[in-house]
């Protein structure tokens, strides 16, 4: 039952997408073109995120660590 309502909800979302982007009005070959373009854009964005996300996160983490790390060293030297 849950699967069925989930499927109905997804179908409704797909209909909303069709109505908002006017693909409801397009001929079949135009729809193919439009969906191909959209899907390829999404795939490219997802691939870019997959490649660069870990690198960005680790760089940001190192930067923050460097900030707090250097501060800790300074205070230690003053105290000493």
């Amino acid at each position, binding site marked *: 039952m849950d699967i069925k309502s989930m499927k109905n909800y997804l179908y*409704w979302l797909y*209909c*909303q997408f*069709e*109505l*908002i*982007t*006017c*693909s*409801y*009005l*397009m*001929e079949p070959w*135009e729809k193919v073109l*439009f969906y191909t373009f959209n899907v390829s854009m999404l795939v490219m964005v997802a691939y870019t995120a997959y490649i660069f996300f870990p690198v960005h996160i680790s760089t940001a983490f190192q930067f923050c660590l460097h900030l707090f790390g250097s501060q800790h060293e300074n205070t230690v030297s003053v105290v000493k």
Partner: protein
Amino acid sequence: MELSAKKTFIEHFEQAPMYVAVLTFVGFGVGTVFGYLRDFMRAWGLEKRNVAQEREQQKTCWSNLHTIHQALYDFVPLYQDFENFYTRNLYVRIRDNWNRPICSVPGPQFDLMERVTDDYNWTFRFTGRTIKNVINMGSYNYLGFAETDPNALKTVAKELQRYGTGICSTRQEMGTLDKHVELENLVAKFLGVEDAMVFGMGFATNSMNIPALVGKGCLILSDELNHTSLVLGARLSGATIRIFKHNNMQSLEKLLRDAIVYGQPRSRRAWRKIIILVEGIYSMEGSIVRLPEIVSLKNKYKAYLYLDEAHSIGAVGATGRGVVEYFGMNPNDVDVLMGTFTKSFGAAGGYIAGKKGLVDFLRTHSHSAVYATSMCPPVAEQIIRAMKCLMGLDGTTQGLQRVRQLGKNTRYFRRRLHEMGFIIYGNDDSPVVPLLLYMPGKIGAFARRMLEKNIGVVVVGFPATPITESRARFCVSAAHTREMLDTVLNALDELGDFLHLKYSRYSKSSHPELYEETRFEFED
């Protein structure tokens, strides 16, 4: 003039949330991109051309412009502007929702001819079947006089036997029948004015008579959303036209003051005449004109008022006498009362009513009286019988019952739509109900799905409305029964959930001050 009953003037023009406007533009953007793609394919021969285009010899030849000899034979491109682009790339895709042929009387229910298209709305063919008993929410049949009941049409049939159908002449030559005189006296009595004149066509009443009343050196102050017939009449007259914001009295007063203080543009002389053109009910918004304020402004600044009651005559007012009665005012306050018989009387034609001097002037000077064929006798008889029914002169209270039924239907329909959460424009008492759709994709989907549920609606898009505010316009009729309205409302509920049309952020409750409204208190 004091109002006999203090009425609250509640109009709604709710704005949709911001994301709706953004998504509407996204939809139009995608449509435009694909429009350019299709135009490119048509220009390069990759696709069959179904559109209107110039002849080969008359095409603009871009490569020949460098030689003067060739340049003499180049023609201006005809179909490159935005209107044509929009028509061939966006309008044609949903064209099957307009110009649907009907094959019965446009009463509360009607029959449609079934129409299919094989090549995406470029051509249509009829399958031969008719779709029966479609509920009619689009016809201007406010009082339900579009009927085929033989008892009701007895006098019309008799006049048809007596006079035939053709007049074959204009009013000034040999086209004035005793039926016209009878009708004009009846119209004058109905409205409470001195005299009236009737014309064969409603649109022509406006466009042919405004040039007779104003000319060069006069000033026309016209509402932003006036009908094309008023705009055409104003342009044909040659007078100066200034536009004030829709139903906005501050804007109108500012224009009046500027006109009187500064006069005509270069000579600074006083204007020969200042005339204000307004409508009783605006058919795309469903709003009612603020008549008391306009009349007090007109009296203060000595201007004239031309009131076009095309949609409001018969539809508002306690006994159906239009906006003048709705506000409890004296018909002598309005200088020119104009209206049509197409909407509430089930006939065709228009009238202009007012003082006897005005109407006598129009009888001799109006283009329509001199050159246009007069109204045909069975149609005149239909108007006479409808008006007599409304006034109670046929001995029954049927007319008053129709007006009351229309009022009840209007209030019920609007209340239920507000409660469901749709955005509805207009005054609470107007039988024209625009329901906002906003996105171009939803226009086609809405009309087609309503037809599948056997309900016929009128949807309106870009050139007639602003580009982001496309709407479906319902016309409530006195002939609609409660069951029909409930069927329509249930279908709208379902469709509203499926298409996600319920954008209203307020739903009507017992606390009226909590929802957006405009109340205008005129301080004198």
